[in-house]
C-alpha cells in the first residue's frame, strides 16, 4: 500500500520510525476525519436546508391534504395548488390576507432606510478611514458599543417619543429607526473597504489641485461602489427582516404592516387561517432575502468578517 502512495508517504513513514504497519496513527485518524467530514457535510446541509424545503412544499399543498398526512413531505402532483399564494396576496377586501400591500410597505421602508443609512454612513466612513481628527479612534468604538445595547431598551423611549409626536404607526418613524440603527454597522463595513483603497490615488489627485470633497466624490466613492452596493443590500436585509420595532410601532394599523409583521400576525391570528396559506406568506417573505443574499454573498462575507482573520 505504501509503495503505491509514492515517495511523500514513504518519507512520512520513515520519519515516524520503523513502524511497518500501513495503519499508522496518521492514516487511521485521517480516515476517521474524512468519514466525519462527509457525515458533517450531509448533516449540515440537511439541517440548514430542510426547514426551507419544508416551507416551500407546505405552501403548495391543500390544507386538507396536510391534515390527513402530516408526515408526508412531497405533494402528489395532481394535488399541487397555488391557491395559497393567491389567497395570501389578495387584498382583505377581496377575501385575501393583503400581503401585496405588505410587500409594498416593506419595500418602501427597506429601500428608503438603505438610502438614508448610506447617505449618513458614506461620509462618516470616509472620514474615519482617511482623516485625522479629534476623537477619530473613539468614534468607532462608541458606535459599536451602541450596537450592543438591547433593542428592547431603545424601543421603550422611542415608542413613547413616537407616540407623542404622532409618528407611531407611520412608515417614516420606522425608517428613521432602521436607518439610525444600521449606521454603525454600515460605517464599519464601508470603512474597511475605504481602508483597502490605496491612498496614493487620492494624494495625486490632491496634488493636481482637487480638494477633499472632490476627491471623495470623483475617486473614492466610485471605487467603493461594489462595497457600497453590498452594504446597502445588507441594510436592506436587516430592514426587511426586522420584527420588534415593526410590531411595536405599526401593530395597530394594518395598512402599514410590513411583511414580517403581517406574517407574525397571521400566524397568531384568532381567525383560523390555513397553515398552508400562512406558509405561502413565509415563502413570500423569505424569497427576496435569499435572492439578495445570493447576489451579494461574497462581498457580504468579506465585509462582515473583516478583521476577524487577525484573530
Amino acid at each position, binding site marked *: 500500500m505504501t509503495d503505491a502512495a509514492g515517495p511523500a508517504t514513504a518519507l512520512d513513514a520513515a520519519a515516524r520510525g520503523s513502524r511497518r504497519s500501513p495503519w499508522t496513527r496518521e492514516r487511521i485518524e485521517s480516515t476517521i476525519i474524512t468519514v466525519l467530514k462527509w457525515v458533517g457535510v450531509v448533516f449540515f446541509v440537511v439541517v440548514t436546508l430542510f*426547514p426551507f424545503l419544508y416551507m416551500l412544499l407546505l405552501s403548495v399543498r391543500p390544507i386538507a391534504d396536510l*391534515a390527513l398526512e402530516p408526515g408526508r413531505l412531497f405533494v402528489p402532483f395532481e394535488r399541487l395548488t397555488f391557491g395559497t399564494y393567491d389567497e395570501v396576496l389578495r387584498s382583505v377586501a377581496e377575501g385575501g390576507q393583503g400581503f401585496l400591500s405588505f410587500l409594498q410597505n416593506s419595500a418602501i421602508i427597506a429601500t428608503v432606510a438603505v438610502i438614508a443609512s448610506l447617505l449618513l*454612513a458614506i461620509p462618516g466612513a470616509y472620514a474615519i478611514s482617511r482623516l485625522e481628527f479629534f476623537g*477619530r479612534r473613539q468614534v468607532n468604538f462608541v458606535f459599536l458599543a451602541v450596537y450592543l445595547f*438591547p433593542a428592547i431598551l431603545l424601543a421603550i423611549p422611542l415608542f413613547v417619543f413616537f407616540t407623542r409626536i404622532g409618528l407611531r404607526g407611520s412608515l417614516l418613524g420606522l425608517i428613521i*429607526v432602521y436607518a439610525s440603527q444600521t449606521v454603525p454597522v454600515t460605517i464599519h463595513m464601508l470603512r474597511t473597504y475605504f481602508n483597502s483603497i490605496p491612498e496614493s490615488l487620492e494624494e495625486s489627485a490632491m496634488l493636481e489641485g482637487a480638494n477633499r*470633497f472632490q476627491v471623495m466624490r470623483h475617486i473614492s466613492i466610485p471605487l467603493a461602489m461594489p462595497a457600497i452596493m453590498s452594504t446597502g443590500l445588507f441594510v436592506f436585509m436587516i430592514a426587511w427582516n426586522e*420584527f420588534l420595532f415593526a410590531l411595536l410601532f405599526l401593530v395597530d394599523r394594518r395598512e402599514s404592516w410590513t411583511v414580517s409583521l403581517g406574517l407574525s400576525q397571521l400566524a397568531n391570528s384568532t381567525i383560523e387561517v390555513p397553515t398552508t396559506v400562512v406558509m405561502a406568506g413565509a415563502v413570500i417573505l423569505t424569497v427576496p432575502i435569499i435572492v439578495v443574499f445570493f447576489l451579494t454573498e461574497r462581498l457580504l462575507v468579506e465585509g462582515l468578517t473583516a478583521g476577524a482573520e487577525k484573530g
Partner: protein
Amino acid sequence: MTSSPTTTEGDRPGLSLRQQESRAGLTLLSPTFIVVVAVIILPVLWTIFIAFRDLRLRDIREVGVFGAEFTLDNFIGVFTSRGFFDALLTTVIYSVVGTSLAIGLGLAAALIVRAPFRGRTLVRASMLLPYVSPVVAVAFVWSVMLDPNLGIVNAFGENVLGWDRPIPFLSQRSSEVTVLGISFGIPTALLTVITFQAWRYFPFAFLFILARLQAVPADLDEAAKVDGASPFQRFRYVLLPQLSGVIALLAVLRFIWTFNEFDDIYLLTGGGAGTEVVAVGIFNRLTGRGDIGAAAALSLVLAGLLAIFLFLYFRYFAAKPETSL
C-alpha cells in the same frame, strides 16, 4: 507636502493641512453623529429617566413626560415581582447554552468546509441561510414542523420512531425522560428554543471561524506534520490555539446578543412554558400592562446585569480580546 502650504480652491488660507483635515473629518461625521445621538444615545438616557417615574401608556399623551416625580417603585417592583428571578435564570441558561451550542456547531461547520471540495461554495452558502432569513418566517416554519398535530417531526416520531403520543415541543414546560431506569425532568420548551437559537446563529460563528481558519498559515500545519503530530494532535495543539481569539470574541458577542434576545422566543412560544426571558418580560410590561416605567426599569436591570457579566468576564477570564468588531 506638509511643508508647502497648499492653497487650492476651497481651502481656507491660514489653516494648516492638519487643521483642515480635522475640520473636514468632523464635518463629514457630524450627520451620523447627530442621528446616532438623537435616536440612540438620548433615548437611552431618557430610559433612565423614565425608569424612575410612574408612567403609564394611557397617560403619555397628556402627562408631561418630564414632569412627574421621582420614585423607586419601578425598581422595587422589578425585584419583588413574581417570576423575576425565574426569568433571569432562564435568560442565563438560554444565553450560556445557546451561545456554546452555536459556537460549537459553527466550529464544526468551519472545519468541515475548510478544505476545498466539489460543491463547497454551495454548501457554504446554504449554511448561511438560517442566519440571513427573516426570523418571522423561520420561526413559523419551526413551529409548524414541531406542531403536535400537523408537524412532520411528530408524524415521523409516531410513525417511524414509535412515540406513544406527540411531543408538544413548544408548549410543554417539562417532560419526564427515563434513561437506563433513571427518570428525570427536562425543560422541553426551553430546550427547543435553545436548539432553534443554535440553528439560527451557528452561521455567524461559522463565518468568523472560517475567516480566521483561512488566514492560518499552511506551513504551520505542514511543520507539525513533519514533526510527526497526528491530525487530532495538529487540531488540538496547532489549530485550536490559533482560533482561541476569534472564539473568545464570538463568545462575548453572541452572549450579549442572546442575553438581549427577544424575537426568537416571542415568536416561538410567546414566553410561555418556562421560556420567559427578561426581554419578553419587558415587552409584556410595555404592551400588555402598559406600564412604561416598569418596562424601563426592567430593561435597565437587564442592561446592568449584562454590564456586570461583561465586566467580570474581561476582569477575570479574557486575556486581551480583539475588539475589531
